[in-house]
């Protein structure tokens, strides 16, 4: 029952490309959306469930992406090995950063993560002998699974969808575990959580590292799918976009993050027809959602639905 939502979602995702194998919105934008979903689901664990904030999440995405890009193009690593190395690097970096940074709270935590993100971005722009500077790195080799090259939109759709579904499953399981309940306790009140015997700083560091590693894996996949990476792709604005996805969909709900990522990926694609007005309309829609559904689109809609059901029940009984 707990995984019913995931099952329905997986079925929809499996059927769509069968119905529309050549559709731009399915096989091309879909892949971008799946990557965004993994990032949002990861960030949601840290923001939505543990109640912390990170304005530098794109940095981990960037570190993962650049590790893959640099190791494969400049040192001739096997792409999978490079991905592993990227994950290891992000694991270590995020752990080292988490220790001091997560002692901060609220605005101070936001500032610290923001600073971290900007430092990584400056590093990527300035250290051009390694990172290619603002022009980035190109001609990144494609991935292959046991000699099966992932070189078409449809194949990337399959791969990214699989990884995304796994990440959602992972997130749902974490939330339902003891660790997830500890996170929610930390969210509610750190002092109360500590009196219950939860090592709050350890819990927070853990979830931060998990969320960073998820971003790193996405970064690696992204870089192979695009065959190109530049500091643009992991700038401060992307961090903000990720936070928006989580907030828009609804905090502390895995499917909320999925919803938020989907909207933020597809809306700009549809709004392109408005040319100069697209940013205006995009902003307007986001504002409306946040004003009328402050808990986020997904969570808000769910609540509305249950509210109606209850009302109906009351009508019937009275």
């Amino acid at each position: 029952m707990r995984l019913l939502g995931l099952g329905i979602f997986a079925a929809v995702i499996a059927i769509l490309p069968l119905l529309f194998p050549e559709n731009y919105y399915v096989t091309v934008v879909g892949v971008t959306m799946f990557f965004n979903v993994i990032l949002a689901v990861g960030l949601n664990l840290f923001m939505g469930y543990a109640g912390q904030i990170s304005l530098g999440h794109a940095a981990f995405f960037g570190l993962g992406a650049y590790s893959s890009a640099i190791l494969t193009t400049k040192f001739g690593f096997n792409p999978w090995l490079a991905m592993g190395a990227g994950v290891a690097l992000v694991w270590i970096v995020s752990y080292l950063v988490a220790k001091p940074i997560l002692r901060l709270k609220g605005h101070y935590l936001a500032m610290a993560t923001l600073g971290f993100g900007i430092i990584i971005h400056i590093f990527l722009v300035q250290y051009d002998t390694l990172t290619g500077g603002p022009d980035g790195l190109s001609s990144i080799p494609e991935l292959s699974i046991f000699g099966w090259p992932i070189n078409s939109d449809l194949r990337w759709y399959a791969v990214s969808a699989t990884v995304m579904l796994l990440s959602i499953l992972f997130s749902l399981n974490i939330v339902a575990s003891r660790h997830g309940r500890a996170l929610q306790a930390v969210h509610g009140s750190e002092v109360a959580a500590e009196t219950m015997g939860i090592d709050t700083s350890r819990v927070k560091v853990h979830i931060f590292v998990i969320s960073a590693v998820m971003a790193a894996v996405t970064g690696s996949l992204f870089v192979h799918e695009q065959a190109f990476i530049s500091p643009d792709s992991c700038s401060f604005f992307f961090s903000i976009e990720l936070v928006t996805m989580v907030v828009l969909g609804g905090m502390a709900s895995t499917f909320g993050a999925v919803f938020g990522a989907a909207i933020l990926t597809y809306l700009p694609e549809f709004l392109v027809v408005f040319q100069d007005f697209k940013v205006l309309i995009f902003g307007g829609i986001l504002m409306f959602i946040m004003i009328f559904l402050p808990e986020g689109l997904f969570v808000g809609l769910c609540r509305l639905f249950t509210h109606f059901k209850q009302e109906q029940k009351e009508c019937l009984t009275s």
Partner: protein
Amino acid sequence: MYRTMIKGLFACMLGISSALVLTLSAASAVHASGTIKIGSFLALTGPASFLGDPELKTLQMYVGEINQKGGVLGKKLELVYYDTSGKAKVAKDVVKRLIKKDRVDLIVGGSTSGTTLAVIDIVEREKIPFISLAGSIRIIKPVKKWVFKTPHTDRMAAAKIFEDMKKRNISKVALITGNGGFDKSGHAQCLDLAPKYGINIVADESYNNADTDMTTQLTKIRATDAKAILNFGFGKAPAIVTKNVRQLGIKLPLYQSHGVASKKFIELAGDAANGVRLPAAALIVAEQLPDNDPQKPVLLSYKKKYEAKYGPVSTFGGHAYDGLFIAVEAIKRAGCVDKAKVRDEIEKTKGFVGTGGVFNMGPDDHLGLGLDAFKMVEIENGAWKLLY
């Protein structure tokens, strides 16, 4: 509470569904085939919009003109364009859209080197002829099968400047560059070329393109025995460097790159701009060219048409003119819009007189301009003066 939520929700749904309807209707209009589709992605907003804006205007103006005359091969041209705001990430997405959704026949665009380099892999993979409007030499070197470009390279600019320095017996140069893609690429080309011209880079300073004061770096340069200053960059920063040089009373000759070859630079730097030397496309000094110059009629006609419609020309719009007409000529020669044939014909472009120079492309040269395509220009009394 729930009432207002529902009202808001309706408003959102209305907005989203109207967007959807518009998208679908636009999509069906597009499928009315029989046109030749030219895709473009330009920096229409953001810091590089001074590139994208004249490029788009030029493309729109000439696509309109060609269509009025009956189009190409009896078909009308259709321009499909998107704004990249100069961001590589956006460029990548919109080019995918151009290729996979709009299914354009060829692409003319990419205002900045960053956005062009970002899409090269996908263009090569999808096998679409692509004429870039950006400067970096990395775009065409090594040669990519499907990628061409029309603007002079940063390497040519550096070579032209060093040539001029040699003529003036300057051998010690202080280099100052920004942190953008154009700056960094130019910086690398300068360092690479300097020894070949017997030039010694005695100072190598850098600034952030968003900086508002570069006196610190220039003071350091003043302390060296440099005999000239070379600033490689575009946008606001070179104007600030120029002003700071004058404010500090540094009397050394100041060179700028072709990145500042627009009236905007003179406006920003004011009197300080006088005496600055730079290599530039012939467009900005069209009237001063000798009458036997093959480029002169092309330049004057472009200038007249553009200025009648939009105001002062810049060399950047000229690159779009070159790109569009190289493509149109190639389609005419190919006799169809078959991508491979059009690509082959673009590569065979010979003796095409454009605003950037006379183009002679080949299998190992996807630009086709020589060093003579650049003119050395000095700013005098707030106007461009052709040196040679």
